[in-house]
């Protein structure tokens, strides 16, 4: 019995779509609440007292901004909306997946694949836009020697035939590992909770749901951190 059953049976809306729309609705609601708080006449300058929604989200945003500055560099603000949106979307989807009657969008391979493909396109586009044709350079390995042809010095990357296929395959595998890591973590936790619920239905499944809570935070953090690292690697200047 799930929350999505009614729409699924009447209008044949897939439950993944419903779960994703529910997560988006929650996210928009949270951001509207925080912006309303920040738009108050005294808002934004002093933090609130105690634990409020705005304080919690500010902690998260500040942590992500620090990480973004360390990994992406000095123009992290261009990519910060994408990374922040991915973090909160993944987090809310994971948490919804833990609730018994409700499913999360991250239990399906398609949402994870969509997020991973978006990150893939963004970091390649950012790298090509920053560096032009020289974006291919870092796939081809270090320059081994220099050769002068008609007075112009070329840095010859002699290991390119060896390294280029490997690097391209590794790059394509980033999409796969990003999505499969998220899916497999959520699938493993749901399976473990289901198995323990079949064995000892009284208290023990709650322990594994607590583990699932920790795992959902960690997986959201790792997804966004890896996105930031890939973007940073694509746009960094070579050393």
């Amino acid at each position, binding site marked *: 019995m799930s929350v999505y059953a009614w729409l699924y049976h009447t209008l044949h809306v897939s439950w993944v779509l419903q779960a994703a729309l529910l997560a988006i609705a929650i996210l928009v609601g949270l951001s509207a609440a925080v912006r309303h708080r920040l738009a108050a006449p005294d808002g934004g300058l002093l933090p609130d007292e105690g634990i409020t929604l705005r304080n919690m989200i500010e902690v998260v945003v500040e942590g992500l901004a620090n*990480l973004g500055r360390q990994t992406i560099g000095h123009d992290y603000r261009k990519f910060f909306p994408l990374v922040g949106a991915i973090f909160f979307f993944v987090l809310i989807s994971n948490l919804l997946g833990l609730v018994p009657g409700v499913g999360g969008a991250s239990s399906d391979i398609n949402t994870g694949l969509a997020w991973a493909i978006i990150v893939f396109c963004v970091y390649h586009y950012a790298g090509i836009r920053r560096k032009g044709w020289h974006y291919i350079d870092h796939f081809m390995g270090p320059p081994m020697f220099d050769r002068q042809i008609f007075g112009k010095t070329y840095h010859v990357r002699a290991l390119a035939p060896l390294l280029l296929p490997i690097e391209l395959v590794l790059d394509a595998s980033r999409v796969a*590992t990003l999505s*499969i*890591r998220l*899916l*497999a*973590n959520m*699938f*493993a936790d749901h*399976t473990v909770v289901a198995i323990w619920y079949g064995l000892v239905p009284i208290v023990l499944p709650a322990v594994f749901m607590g583990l699932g809570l920790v795992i959902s935070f*960690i*997986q959201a*953090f*790792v997804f966004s*951190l*890896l996105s930031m690292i890939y973007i940073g690697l694509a746009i960094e200047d070579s050393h």
Partner: protein
Amino acid sequence: MRNFGKLLVFTLVATLLPLAAFAQEAGAHGGSASNWGAALGAGLAFGLAGLGCGLGQGLTAGNTTAGIARNPGAAGALNTPFILGMALIESIALVGFVTAFLLIGKV
């Protein structure tokens, strides 16, 4: 070290030798798995993946703890590589887990 080798060989032989005796009976009432290779593969998949993941994460946690013990001010800087390293190593074990489930479906 030489004693450990002998102990290992003895343990393996003592564990696996009775299987030869059981094989006689097993042939009589037959296993119910129509594709025992998939079942064996599923067990090996997750077992070996878990072994590698355990070793890798143990090394990561040990080195991080040693780094913090050596320099307690580095705990903040070590936090992010620690979590990131654990999650990346974990993903390999989880690929083994998913492989095991896919193989169990083919039993």
